[in-house]
Each structure stands twice: as structure tokens, then as C-alpha cells.
């Protein structure tokens, strides 16, 4: 298969074009390092200004969307240590959080000194959603560039659950641990506008309600949330504007007692569903759903191109995929 000679995007990636040197359109549009650095400074300063001015009248300064993976663990520690934040860490249990990740979550929450909340949506409802996501395309094609359909559905629910809690508890910031490959710096400080959120929520809620019925609705914002527009928080994604260095991240979080799970695939350090989601996506579309993220990390110089290629071509764990299928009640997904 043909792959960009600079990053790792393959010819199967939607909308890709190569020039005569085999360099893809995304690489050609990539901005210079100085540009990225000045953007990072701009967004970090914006966040720090907002942080200094925050009116934290409730019990928490921020809510951290905490998956238990390496990036969100590092971010959680930064918030508590560097910014002195009173954090409520929230983990949404999609039924596939790896046992090692659960132990990590407990250890890290204790080591860092933050309150933690597990939210577990009904598994019978999630099961319907994930099974449907494995069979057909549910969201606009644009979303497929960045993640598998299963991941997109799960992440959307995580986002709205966190937003619900932030509005209810009057928490002024919701923080995510996206890597700079997953979220561009321009989206690292973002004020949630209720009307905007309402529209974005509809694009996810509608298809999921068709699949799972009204039982899905409690995991989305309700009118009672929209009735408190003054409580809509900022979304913050610190790893997009701070330094991102995987070696440093691992070194720091190991001090907190975080252990690398042996039971997940190489692109996820918390979720057992991921192998299956990747398998489905790779079969359906012919590229790894992590290609976009890793390509961007390669362009930014934080990941070696050969390491990225190795990660992307590694086969998924067949046994794990089989276990997930069993738990979802789909032996043979209908692939198109």
C-alpha cells in the first residue's frame, strides 16, 4: 500500500492526494514549527488568564474527563500539581475499561489527591449502540477520518455526560487529555455555547436514539441544562498547548503508580473495546483509525515515523476481538 513519504497516511485515507514526491496534501498544508509554537503560547496564555479569573463558586475548579489512559493521567496530575486545581475526575465506564486501567484509576486518583466519579451507563443500551456502529456508518463521513464509529459514539457520550455534570455542579472548566494529534491547538480552549452544543448534540443524539431508543436520552443534555446557559463551562485540552513528550509522560505517571496495561492494543492504554473498533474500521475502510492522529504527531516531531508505521500495522489481538464480539452479542458483524 502507498503511504505518504513524510507522515504515515495511506492511499486509502479519505481525500488524500500525493504530489510527485509522494508527499500528502495534509503534510503540504502543515504549518511551520514556529507557527505552532506561537499558537501554543497564545492558547496557553488564554487558558491561564481564564484560569486566574475563574469564579469557582462550587466545590470544584474543573472536571477532568479521565479515561485512565496515559494522556489523561498525565493531564490530571498537571492540573492538580501545576495549577493547584480542585479536580473532580470522571470516568465513564463503557463496559470495556480494562481491569488494569481500573486499578490505575484508583491508584492515580489517590496519588494525585483528587475526587473521582465512575459513571456507568446502562450496558444493554451501550451494547445496542456499539453493535450498530460495527455494522453501519452512523455519523457524517468527516468523523471517520479521526476515529472509528464506535470510538466516536463512545466519545460523544463521554463529552455530553461530562458537560451535564459540569453544568449541574457549576464547574467552570471541563478538561480533556487529547494528544496534539487528536485535537489541534485551535480547539484547546473552547467556550461551550449552549445553542452550538444543542446543535452538535442533535447530530449524535438523533442517530443513537434511532438505534437504542429513549433509554439513550439520560446521557445527553436536557432542557434543565440548557436552562442554565451561564453555567456552560470552557472545554480545555492542555496537551495541545503544553509540551507533549511520550517518554516524559510515561516517566511521570509511573511515579504515580500507573502501570501500562498488557491487555489493550498499542493505541489505547485503557479500553478493551478498541481492538474490535479498530478491526471493524480497518476492514471497512482499509486504514487504521489512529492514522490521522499518529500522522500529526509525526509531523510535529513528537513521534518517530517508523514507530508510527509499526504501531499502525500491528495486527489486532484476535482473541480480544472475539471476546468483545461475544460480549456485544455479535458473532459475525456485517461488514460492507
Amino acid at each position, binding site marked *: 500500500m502507498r503511504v505518504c513519504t513524510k507522515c504515515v497516511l495511506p492511499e486509502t485515507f479519505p*481525500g488524500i492526494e500525493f504530489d510527485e514526491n509522494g508527499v500528502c496534501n495534509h503534510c503540504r498544508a502543515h504549518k511551520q514549527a514556529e507557527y505552532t509554537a506561537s*499558537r501554543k503560547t497564545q492558547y496557553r496564555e488564554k487558558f491561564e488568564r481564564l484560569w486566574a479569573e475563574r469564579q469557582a463558586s462550587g466545590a470544584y475548579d474543573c472536571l477532568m474527563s479521565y479515561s485512565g489512559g496515559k494522556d489523561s493521567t498525565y493531564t490530571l496530575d498537571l492540573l492538580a500539581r501545576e495549577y493547584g486545581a480542585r479536580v473532580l475526575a470522571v470516568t465513564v465506564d463503557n463496559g470495556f475499561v480494562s481491569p488494569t486501567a481500573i486499578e490505575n484509576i484508583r491508584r492515580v486518583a489517590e496519588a494525585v489527591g483528587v475526587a473521582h466519579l465512575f459513571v456507568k451507563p446502562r450496558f444493554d443500551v451501550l451494547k445496542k449502540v456499539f453493535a450498530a456502529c460495527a455494522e453501519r456508518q452512523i*455519523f*457524517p463521513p*468527516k*468523523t471517520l477520518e479521526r476515529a472509528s464509529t464506535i470510538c466516536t459514539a463512545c466519545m460523544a457520550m463521554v463529552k455530553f455526560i461530562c458537560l451535564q455534570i459540569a453544568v449541574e455542579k457549576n464547574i467552570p472548566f471541563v478538561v480533556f487529555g487529547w494528544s496534539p494529534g487528536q*485535537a*489541534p491547538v*485551535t*480547539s484547546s480552549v*473552547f*467556550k461551550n*455555547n449552549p*445553542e*452550538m452544543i444543542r*446543535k*452538535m448534540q*442533535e*447530530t449524535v443524539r438523533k442517530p443513537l436514539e434511532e438505534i437504542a431508543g429513549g433509554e439513550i436520552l439520560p446521557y445527553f443534555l436536557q432542557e434543565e441544562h440548557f436552562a442554565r446557559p451561564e453555567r456552560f463551562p470552557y472545554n480545555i485540552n492542555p496537551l495541545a498547548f503544553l509540551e507533549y513528550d511520550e517518554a516524559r509522560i510515561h516517566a511521570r505517571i509511573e511515579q504515580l503508580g500507573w502501570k501500562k496495561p498488557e491487555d489493550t492494543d498499542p493505541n489505547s492504554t485503557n479500553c478493551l473495546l478498541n481492538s474490535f473498533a479498530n478491526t471493524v474500521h480497518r476492514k471497512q475502510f482499509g486504514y487504521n483509525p489512529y492514522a490521522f492522529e499518529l500522522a500529526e504527531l509525526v509531523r510535529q516531531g513528537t513521534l518517530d515515523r517508523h514507530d508510527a508505521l509499526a504501531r499502525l500495522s500491528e495486527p489486532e489481538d484476535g482473541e480480544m476481538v472475539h471476546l468483545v464480539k461475544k460480549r456485544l452479542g455479535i458473532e459475525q458483524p456485517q461488514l460492507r
Partner: protein
Amino acid sequence: MENFVFGLDGAELNDSDSFLDKGIIDSTGVLEVVAFLEETYGFSVADEEVVPENFDSVDNLVVYVEKKKAEMPGQPARLMGA
């Protein structure tokens, strides 16, 4: 500009279509548009201005950009368009 924002030829999109309803753009995309406008036209977009009324269709964007350019002191504004 449409080409920058969506990587589309515009064929499937009417100027009044909602980007969000059509699933052409998500929250990340909206913020990329914000950054693009700031760089291209040199004005800054306030957080309160990132609302559907300003950003959720080509028509809305055009009106918003014209208004912002008119508010800019000094220099004649650059022409809109890609």
C-alpha cells in the same frame, strides 16, 4: 474559503445550509474556521461570538465577516473569498 474549511467542492452545500446539521463540520471544525478567519482578516473572534448565528452556514459567515471587517480600525479590508 469553502474549500479550505471543508475540503469540498461546494457542490453538495448550499450557502444557507447549516454546517452542523449537515454534519460537515464538528466542534473542532468550527474552531479551525475561527483560527482561519483570525489569520486571514486580522480581527479577533471573541468567545461569545462563536455561535450558530455567526458560524453555522456560508451565509452567516459572510455576514459576520463583513460586520467584523467594518468594525476594524484603519486599513481597507481584504476581499472575502478564497
